[in-house]
Each structure stands twice: as structure tokens, then as C-alpha cells.
């Protein structure tokens, strides 16, 4: 047995060979580890504060920041609530966000329960189908809904023909809320489904043994345990719908319903002489609201950990049988998937291949590739396609790398301000995209050494703004993956003589590559779909798919919009499929 191999050497000749332990230079007591860690902290601080501080500053200056000679004023805040009708905007926002939250929970909670906890044919397919919002931006969903269910939409006209009237009006706050709820329901679904999967199935078995029927078990055992994820996802959905621009912009513009984000859009972009002071004040107030919501959410999540009934141990729950009710739930779920997502997207794709898209005339009659030709014939449109790809391609690499470094500093170093690094990386989550856009617009105006004018209106500005917006997602995807790598591997390298940096480059780099790749795919898709920060940063040169689609839409060129949207969906799908294949191959090697 090899365990019993006797040690052959004697100690005498062994210990003459001693090696100099490694030395690392520390001028003024600061090693290169600290230099890097402080640099990461400083970079993140500048990145995150760049859009926030100028916004706060602008809100109390009476002239635009790029003009000299401004003075302090509170006029912005006063005007907001007197002249500008901001009160009505706030009310609309509250209604819209509240209704969206209610509707998305009404969709998500029953769905999570029946999919996770009951016997349901095709449950896995449903779980897969719930991932659709990953591929489709809410802007594109909005286009799709208007094309199908809008006042002149395909379905609306068909219903008009059949019944002589359309019982819904998409261009209203309930219409907006329904569309947004369809887009956000999967978020709430994921939270509830995960909570249900983690909770202890024996609680249900216990109730079953006591003689409770499936419905009683669901009502008295399962649903009460869901309270934490419900509260948490409600706040999340609420804060996302406060900042969303797409659906309120598309639906609200024709009927003049304004919410926070569209208020900023209209006053900042569409007015001839924008009142930047008021814009700053409005942004500040909206920022306060979203930051408060995120703080509440973080607090709840912390407390929610106490509710987790069982962790770690995998329980395979016995699923409940609902009998005939299960067919009702299946119908409900597929109604959501088909009417909510599938029909609008298919409509959009069909629209992109036709000239006239209405039930009054067979769309096949006007089948064409002309919409695509228009897109590819125009240098501007092709440019925006390329810009989107460059922004997503370059941006995802940069953001994922930044996320890996930030996680390393925050979670895998003894850096004193590691927590601060983590918070900074996560703060952009609570910054509305449009405010990030406005904030950077002002930041470029203030930036020293003319750096701002170099960036303003370029694709780099878009990469910075989108990258910042994608950073929290990248951090969130990298952190758990890196935390799975045992900390003793770092310690072993440190004791062997590697400092923190060398530990990363010699040992951990290879191990974090999968986490990096995962973040890369995620952020590529996010940045390809993103557009709201760009509306304030765009120029003729740096249009991206989203801003181009938006301007084409206002020109009434729905065909080209549909073509660009279809292209964006196709690129996302191909990219995700390729990435999946590549990573699978790597895994086996």
C-alpha cells in the first residue's frame, strides 16, 4: 500500500536548500494589491456618481450646466408642482406601476404554484417559455402589441369585424399596465417558483397526512409561505415599472398620458427649449423614489432569509393533483404565453415581411422583403445595427471583466472597502435608464479637460451608459459563480507565496473563466436590447437599434421597425444558441 511508503530522505541534506521567500515592494506601505483595489473603488465611484451628481447639481442651477454663469435656485422644484403638471404625472405613474404590479402578480403567483407544486403536463416547457422576456425587449413587445391589439391592430380589426366593436383600449393606463405586466410577470414568477422549490415539501406531506385536500394545502400551507417572495417581487416589479420608458412612450404619446419617464423624455428631448433646471428637479425626485424602493427591497431581502424553511438539502416534493382544475390552469398559462408574447411577436415578424398587415386583406398578397431592403439600403440603419453589435460586443466584454474584478475585490480580498465596491456595483440597478442618459449628458458637459466633448455623441458614451446599466446584472451573475470556488484555493496560493494579484492571475483566472463567459452572454443580450439611456446621448453617428426603431416608429414606418425588431430578436437567439453550444463544448473538454 502506497500510504505506507517510508520517507526516504534524511533531514540533513534536505534543509540546506532554502529559497528566498518572495518579497513584494510596498512603497509607503502600499502594495500593488491595494493600488488595484483602490483603483477599482475609485473607478466605480466615478462611474456611478458621474450621472447622479450632475443631476442633483443641475436641479438647483438656473441655467444649463454647459452654460457659464448659473446661480442657485429652487425654481425647478417649485415649477414642477405648479406649472408643469408634475402632480398628474406622478399620479399616472403611481396608477400605472400599481396596476402593473397587481396584474403581474396575478399572473405569476398562480402560475408558479401550479407549475412547481402540482402535476401539470408540459411543466418543463412552460418553465422554458417563461424565459421569453430575456430575448425580447419591452420596446419590441410594445411594437408587437400595438401591431396586433392597438386601435388599428390586426386582432382589433378582426374583433371589430366579428363583433362590431373592440372591448379594449390599448392606449390607456390599464392597457399600458397589462402589457408591462405581461413583460414583468416572469420576474415575479422566477422569485415565487424558486421559493417554492426551496421550501420544505414535508410540510405539505404533513398536511396531506392530516387529511387536507390539494386545494386546502395550497391555500393554507403553500401560499402563506410565499409571502416573502411576493412582497419582494412586488417591489421589484413596481420599481421597474416606475422607470420603464418603452410601453408608456409608445402607448401614451398618442393620447398624451405622461408618466415619470415619458415626462423626462418629452421635456428633455421634444421641447424646443428644454428647461434643464426642472428636468434636473424631476430626475432628482424620481431618483429618490427608486433609491428608496431599492433600499426597502434590500432590507426585505435580508429579513426574508429568515423565512427560508430549509436550505441546502434537496427535497423532491410530491406534486399535488388538482384534477379537472389542472386543465383550467394549463389553459390560463398558455393563454398568457400565446396572447401575451407569442402572438405579438409573430405579428411583428409577419409585419416585417408584408407591406400591408390587416385582416381585411390576406397578408400573403403583399409578402415582401422590401422592409428589409429599406433597412439594408440605408447607411444610417445599417450603421445603427453595427453600432448595437459593437456596443453589445465591446460593452459586454468590458462590463463582464469589470464585474469579475469587482467581485474579486468585494468578495475575495481583505480590502477594507470591499462592501463599498459591492454597493457601488449594484447601485445602477436603482437608476432609471433615462436618468442615466440625462445624467451622463450633463456629466459630459461638466467633465474636466474637455473629456466630455470627446465622448459626447459617440458610441463610447453609449457603451459607458449601457455598461453601467448592465453592471449590476453582471455582478449578480459573476458573484455566486465565483463564490462557488473554494476560498482555500486562494489561501493555498497566498501561503505558497503569491500576493492577491498573482493569486488571481496564476490560479483563479482559469477558474473564473466560466463565470466570465456566463456574464458575457447575459450582458451582451442586455446591452443589445437596451436603449433608454441612449435617447439623451444619441447623435446621427451613434444611433443604436432601439433609438432607430423609436424614430422610425414616430415617422410611421412600422414595416422597417418590424424588420429591425425581427433582426434584433434573431441576433439574440443566434447568439444565445451559439454561446450555449460553445460553453457546453468547453465543459466537456
Amino acid at each position, binding site marked *: 500500500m*502506497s500510504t505506507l511508503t517510508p520517507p526516504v530522505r534524511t533531514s540533513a541534506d534536505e534543509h540546506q536548500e532554502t529559497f528566498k521567500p518572495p518579497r513584494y515592494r510596498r512603497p509607503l506601505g502600499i502594495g500593488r494589491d491595494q493600488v488595484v483595489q483602490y483603483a477599482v473603488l475609485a473607478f466605480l465611484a466615478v462611474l456611478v456618481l458621474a450621472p447622479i451628481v450632475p443631476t442633483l447639481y443641475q436641479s438647483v442651477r438656473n441655467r444649463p450646466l454647459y452654460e457659464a454663469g448659473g446661480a442657485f435656485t429652487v425654481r425647478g422644484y417649485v415649477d414642477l408642482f405648479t406649472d408643469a403638471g408634475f402632480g398628474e404625472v406622478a399620479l399616472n405613474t403611481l396608477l400605472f406601476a400599481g396596476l402593473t404590479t397587481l396584474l403581474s402578480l396575478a399572473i405569476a403567483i398562480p402560475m408558479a404554484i401550479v407549475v412547481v407544486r402540482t402535476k401539470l403536463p408540459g411543466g418543463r416547457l412552460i418553465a422554458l417559455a417563461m424565459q421569453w422576456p430575456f430575448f425580447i425587449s419591452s420596446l419590441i413587445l410594445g411594437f408587437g402589441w400595438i401591431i396586433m391589439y392597438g386601435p388599428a391592430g390586426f386582432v382589433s380589426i378582426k374583433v371589430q369585424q366579428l363583433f362590431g366593436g373592440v372591448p379594449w383600449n390599448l392606449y390607456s393606463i390599464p392597457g399600458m399596465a397589462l402589457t408591462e405586466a405581461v413583460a414583468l410577470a416572469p420576474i415575479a414568477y422566477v422569485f415565487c417558483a424558486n421559493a417554492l422549490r426551496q421550501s420544505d415539501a414535508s410540510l405539505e406531506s404533513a398536511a396531506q397526512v392530516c387529511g387536507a385536500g390539494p386545494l386546502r394545502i395550497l391555500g393554507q400551507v403553500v401560499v402563506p409561505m410565499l409571502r416573502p417572495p411576493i412582497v419582494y417581487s412586488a417591489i421589484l416589479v413596481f420599481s421597474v415599472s416606475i422607470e420603464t420608458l418603452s410601453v408608456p412612450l409608445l402607448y401614451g404619446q398618442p393620447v398624451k398620458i405622461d408618466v415619470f419617464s415619458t415626462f423626462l423624455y418629452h421635456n428633455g428631448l421634444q421641447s424646443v427649449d428644454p428647461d434643464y433646471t426642472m428636468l434636473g428637479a424631476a430626475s432628482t425626485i424620481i431618483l429618490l423614489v427608486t433609491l428608496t424602493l431599492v433600499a426597502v427591497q434590500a432590507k426585505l431581502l435580508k429579513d426574508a432569509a429568515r423565512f427560508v424553511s430549509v436550505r441546502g438539502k434537496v427535497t423532491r416534493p410530491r406534486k399535488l393533483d388538482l384534477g379537472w382544475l389542472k386543465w383550467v390552469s394549463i389553459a390560463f398559462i398558455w393563454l398568457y404565453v400565446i396572447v401575451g408574447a407569442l402572438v405579438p411577436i409573430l405579428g411583428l415578424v409577419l409585419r416585417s415581411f408584408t407591406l400591408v398587415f390587416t385582416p381585411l386583406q390576406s397578408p400573403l398578397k403583399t409578402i415582401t422583403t422590401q422592409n428589409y431592403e429599406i433597412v439594408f439600403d440605408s447607411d444610417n440603419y445599417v450603421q445603427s445595427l453595427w453600432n448595437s453589435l459593437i456596443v453589445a460586443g465591446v460593452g459586454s466584454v468590458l462590463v463582464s471583466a469589470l464585474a469579475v474584478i469587482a467581485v474579486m475585490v468585494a468578495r475575495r480580498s481583505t480590502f477594507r472597502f470591499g462592501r463599498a465596491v459591492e454597493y457601488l456595483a449594484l447601485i445602477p440597478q436603482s437608476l432609471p435608464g433615462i436618468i442615466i442618459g440625462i445624467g451622463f449628458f450633463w456629466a459630459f458637459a461638466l467633465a474636466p479637460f474637455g473629456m466630455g466633448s470627446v465622448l459626447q455623441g459617440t458610441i463610447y458614451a453609449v457603451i459607458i451608459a449601457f455598461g453601467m446599466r448592465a453592471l449590476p446584472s453582471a455582478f449578480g451573475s459573476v458573484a455566486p459563480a465565483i463564490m462557488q470556488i473554494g476560498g482555500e484555493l486562494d489561501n493555498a496560493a497566498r501561503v505558497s507565496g503569491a500576493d492577491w494579484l498573482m493569486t488571481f492571475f496564476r490560479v483563479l483566472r482559469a477558474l473564473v473563466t466560466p463565470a466570465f463567459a456566463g456574464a458575457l452572454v447575459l450582458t451582451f443580450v442586455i446591452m443589445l436590447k437596451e436603449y433608454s439611456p441612449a435617447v439623451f446621448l444619441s447623435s446621427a453617428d451613434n444611433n443604436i437599434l432601439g433609438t432607430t426603431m423609436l424614430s422610425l416608429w414616430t415617422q410611421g414606418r412600422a414595416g422597417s421597425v418590424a424588420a429591425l425588431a425581427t433582426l434584433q430578436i434573431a441576433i439574440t437567439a443566434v447568439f444565445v444558441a451559439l454561446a450555449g453550444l460553445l460553453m457546453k463544448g468547453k465543459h466537456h473538454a
Partner: protein
Amino acid sequence: MPEVTVKNLAKTFGDNSVLRDVTFTIKDGEFFTLLGASGCGKSTTLNCIAGLEQPTEGSITVGGRPFVDASAGVFLPPEERNLGMVFQSYALWPHMTIAKNLALPLNIRKVPKEKQRTLIHDALDKVGLADLSGRYPHQLSGGQQQRVALARALVYSPTVLLLDEPLSNLDAKLREQARAWLKRLQEELGITTVYVTHDQEEALALSDRIAVMEGGNMIQIGTPHEIYERPAAPEVAAFVGRCNFLTGRVIGQEGRRYRILLDCSDDVVQVDSDERVPAGHSVTVAIRPERLEVVAQSGTPSHVNQLRTEVLTSSYVGSRYEYDVRLGDQAVQVLSGNGGLAGEVVLVFDPAQALLYQDKVELPEEQRDLLTVTS
């Protein structure tokens, strides 16, 4: 080979103090074990020596070189301490071959390639794995991984070897063999070794000296023999080996010999001790099960201490018999060579074999319940 001096080491996390005023010196070439239950502070102490944790107070000096001195603001990062360490999980870098794992510390020390090859070969040879240098860690068994980890910790001739429960992931049989092998290797190399374990048998078998820790305090430092035979505190007696605790009151004293009235059965026993306990004071008598003997009632009554008891359970544990006997309302464990006893028996022990501690030992409630015999 240097001496390790740890002085007044303390570590707090917020309000939670995990290490309190720990002081000890490890001699050159010594095999020194930190023994204690989980959460006692033994790993924190080891990590402080390694530099993976920074103590709140105190100092650590190795071979005259200050590693850390909290009051003087000295802290040498782990990479500059030139220590070798084996982790509980072995922490072999999974994407590197065995040879590459061993080469990394040598690369960092800028050892020439030629020299590296011989060193790596020698180190792997020492642990009997020279032919596996091209393998990846996951292709090795647990025992092999553990030896590779040891080779990696030794390949650059560190000044001190730190071992953090390196055997705890091996299965029982292999663990015993690995223990003996590790002991021989350490003696062969003569390297100063700090070993952390919660396994008292392991500690007794391997160590030159053991430090027993509990709740962040170091309660006794001594050779395995001292720790087992003369535990300085009831906690040590309870943790190292098994021990019966009988509470009582001193009712008389002649020189070193005390007469004690037991609480559980109102018997009077005689115990030898150097402790100075005034009459009437509460005490605890601690006796290890193997120092107790049970004899049938008809046995020769030549013993000083004879207690009437009744066998509750008896079991054969190979080589010995284990009895649970009832002494008043308390269950007492006895390991005996005498088999087949039942019913009324006499419990005997030598006054010199029992330990006397001042005050009553408060056993944890759960343990007390298990030892209380009703009816």
C-alpha cells in the same frame, strides 16, 4: 528551524470574541497540536499564524522574525511568511497537473527550471507519488490528494508546516495509516509543525505537545501524557478521552488524601490530590472509565474505594467490556476486562487514579439528562 512564539493573541469580530489572550511557544522541530471542538478558535489561531487572518491583539514571531504585532502595527502578508500549509479540502488547484501545482510556489521564488524538476520529483517521491506528476487532482484518490497537498506545502522548504485537519476527509482506516505515515515523515524532516484537529486520538498519537482550546481560550498545554493523565480542567478531561464526573463535598483531609461525600449516592470516597480544597467545599471527582473497575460482590475487598452499584447495561466492545452502572441517581461508565457481570456489583478505584477539581462541574443540560437515572 525556528521557534514560533505567540503572545496574547486575541481576535474579535464585532462584539464576538473568538480568541482571547492566547499565548504559547512552539519549539524548534516540534509537532504541536491545537485541539478543540469546532468553534473553539483553533483554526483562527492557525490562520493568524499563516497570515490569512489578522488578529485584533497580540503578536506572532517565527524564528525571531515578527509576523504580526497588533500594537506595533506590523502585519506580514501570508505570501511573505514562507510557510507551508495543508488545508482541510487540500485546496489543490484543479486546473493544474500535480507537477504544475508543485511548480507554482517554486516559480514565484524564481527557482531555475532544472532545479524545479529535481525538487518536484524529490517532494513527490517523499510522499510516494513520483509517478503521478502528470495527473490532474481530480484523477487522484482522497488519500493521494492529501499527500500531494503535503508535497506542495513542503516543496519550497518552508520554515513551518501548518496542517488544518488534513486527515478529516479520509475514511477511518486510511486515516489511521495516514496518521502514522505523517508522524514518520515529520520526524524525518524535523520541520516545526502546527497541527489543528478536533480528533483527540489523532492529537494524542501525533503530537509532541498539545494545546487544548475551548471557547477561544487555551485551557491547557502539555505533552499527550500530561493532557490525558493530568488534565488541568474538567473540560480537558471531558474532551480528551472519556470521563465520569461525580460532584460532592469535602468532609475530611489527611495530607494529600481527601474524603468526599458524593451527591449522587451519599457514599464517601477517598481521592488523592495536590489541589488545596477547604473542608465543606464543593468539588468534582473525575474518573476515566478505564480507571474504574467493577467486581462481583464476592470479590476480595482490598480496595479503599468500594461503592455498591447495579449494572444497567453491559456491552462487549471488542477487547473490553463496557458497563453502565447506577451510582445513586447517576449513570457511570466503566471499561473493564471482567465480562459477564450483572445485577449488584462493586465499583472500585484507586484514590490516585481519580482527579479532583474545585467547584461543581456544570455539564451541558442535554448530557446531564442522559446521565441521570430515574427510579
